[in-house]
């Protein structure tokens, strides 16, 4: 996206007023020429101002001691107190570690699997069978999160199926959602069940775009199917994989907040509590608005930094970028 004109054409200091008037005139002319389009833009811009930009200005709360009934700018200023409180608190490292680990493990396990599934599906020659498997594999993706978490909690009670399975392999026969050690495997495993099929769609699309002549040529040269997969299919998938990997890294600190919120409970905060659930608890349950906003800003800043960084990498190495 090219930089907006308003910001790039900053006039020289002495002629600022004059240029400003010129610019306004130009904008007015553009508006007159496209009256109806600008009129259509009004509700959209109003939406973003009200529900995105005004809340953005609410970050000043983080530097205040908010009192109920006050507006965004009315509380007493306390500088960085809320931030230092957070960084020095016992929770800081725990939250940081949990957020990072949950996201990283999810990436580690749930990123490569859809690729493997796509490769395996691609080897199936019977179209009807392949389509049936695909349709079944998308199914879990369409079930609502509340229901998924309801099923998870049913399955992991002390008599649930998953618990039985775990016990069979020597695990404990207790309510797994009450065990800090089991939260991460449950989170990752259920994520796998939900998304594996759906996430393979994009790779299947990339696979179907590979030129069949490549395979014919390889067969002429005596390459077997395994060799073809290694030398043709995988290299053709690499660009898609890289783009998706970079996009995925950009949202590294955006862990599935709602899912954690539905699954966790105080006895497993040790591994399950993440920055966004902490923000939710401190802010909306304890009504500690200023502190919670500060924690939220910290998370938001990490997200923005990661997004910009991976976007930079993506633009540099793959020609694909969000901005």
């Amino acid at each position, binding site marked *: *996206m090219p930089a907006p*004109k308003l910001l790039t054409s900053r006039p020289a200091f002495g002629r600022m007023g004059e240029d400003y008037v010129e610019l306004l005139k*130009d*904008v007015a002319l*553009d508006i007159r020429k*496209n009256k*109806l*389009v*600008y009129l*259509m*833009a009004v509700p*959209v811009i109003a*939406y973003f101002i*009200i*529900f*995105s*930009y*005004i*809340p*953005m200005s*609410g*970050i000043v709360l983080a530097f205040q001691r908010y009192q109920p009934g006050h507006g*965004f700018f009315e509380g007493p200023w306390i500088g960085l107190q809320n931030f230092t409180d957070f960084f020095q608190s016992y929770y800081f490292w725990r939250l940081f570690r949990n957020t990072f680990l949950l996201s990283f493990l999810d990436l580690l396990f749930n990123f490569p699997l859809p690729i493997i599934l796509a490769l*395996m599906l691609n*080897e*199936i020659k019977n179209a009807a*069978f392949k389509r049936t498997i695909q*349709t079944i*594999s*998308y*199914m*879990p993706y*369409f*079930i*609502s999160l*509340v*229901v998924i*978490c*309801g*099923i998870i909690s*049913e399955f992991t009670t002390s008599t649930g*199926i998953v618990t039985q399975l775990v016990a069979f392999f020597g695990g404990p026969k207790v309510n797994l959602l009450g065990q800090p050690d089991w939260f991460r495997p449950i989170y990752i495993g259920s994520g796998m*069940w939900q998304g594996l099929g759906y996430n393979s*769609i*994009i790779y299947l*699309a990339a696979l179907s775009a590979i030129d069949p002549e490549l395979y014919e040529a390889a067969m002429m040269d005596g390459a*077997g199917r395994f060799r073809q997969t290694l030398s043709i299919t995988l290299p053709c998938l690499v660009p898609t994989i890289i783009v998706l990997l970079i996009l995925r890294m950009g949202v590294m600190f955006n862990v599935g907040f*709602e899912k954690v*919120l*539905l699954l966790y409970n105080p006895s497993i905060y040790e591994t399950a509590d993440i920055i966004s659930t902490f*923000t*939710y608890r401190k*802010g*909306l349950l304890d009504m500690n*608005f200023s502190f919670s*906003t500060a924690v*939220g800003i910290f998370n*938001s800043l990490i997200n*923005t930094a990661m997004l910009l960084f991976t976007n930079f990498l993506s633009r540099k190495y793959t020609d694909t970028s*969000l901005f």
Partner: protein
Amino acid sequence: MIRKSYAKTVFDICNILLMVAFAFVCLAPIAHVVFMSISEPSIVNTLSGIMLWPMGEVSLNGYKLILRNPNIITGYLNTLFYVCAGTSISALFTLIAAYVLSRRRMKYRNVLMFIVTFTMLFSGGLIPFYLVVRNLGLLNSRLSLLFPTALSVMNIIIMRTAFLTVPDSLEESARIDGANDFTILFRILLPVVKATFAVIILFYAVGQWNGWFFASIFIKDRALYPLQLILREILLQNQTASMSDATQLISDNLDLYKPLIKYATIVVSTAPILCVYPFVQKYFVKGVMIGSIKG
């Protein structure tokens, strides 16, 4: 040569078996829930392991109990309202936003584009957003689930990309014939981009159907709860009150029926989506591809 084709056959068989196993793992939990919901309550309560066939006396008692539950009925109706109204509002304004942002004849459209995309980069976070909604007086009102989260920047970008692929000449010829922007958008361009628009509608509709978080922080009045919040109470918070409201007849042995009610609730709330999705999945597949390749 013979050894090679032998290896190939072995690979094919293993591959097919693995895929069947995978499909089984995807389906088994769903089948388990469905069969549990129609089996005999005493078996449901004591069964350890997975149920791949209904057991004991098959009955629809679980369903009879939840259909008598006013919480679920109002939840269902509320969700239908939120899906219809919310999706209409979101889809309409996404269409308009995408149209505006894709007009090349507007000199300052990039300023507008910047205003929209910057919100993807940084946000004030949950608390300031909540306070704005509260200060607008939207708390505890149906409007809080229709407007504050109406627009998704990602969807606007997908829709805008679709508009940008339409040749300018189409719009120009319509303008020469005297069409204004509304006519151009709804009569000329919409039919051309209707496939992408269908994807956007689906994304918003599924989002509304499955959404629960904003309802949980904005809505206090139980009469306005969407289905998902009622589900959360029944499935995750184990609130017997929301399970048994007008079902005096089982209040004595509620514990016996509790799991049955849970499973039947899951089926009733998920069935509509699972019945519809095989028919709409191709649009979703398309949407995933637009979203991740061109996004």
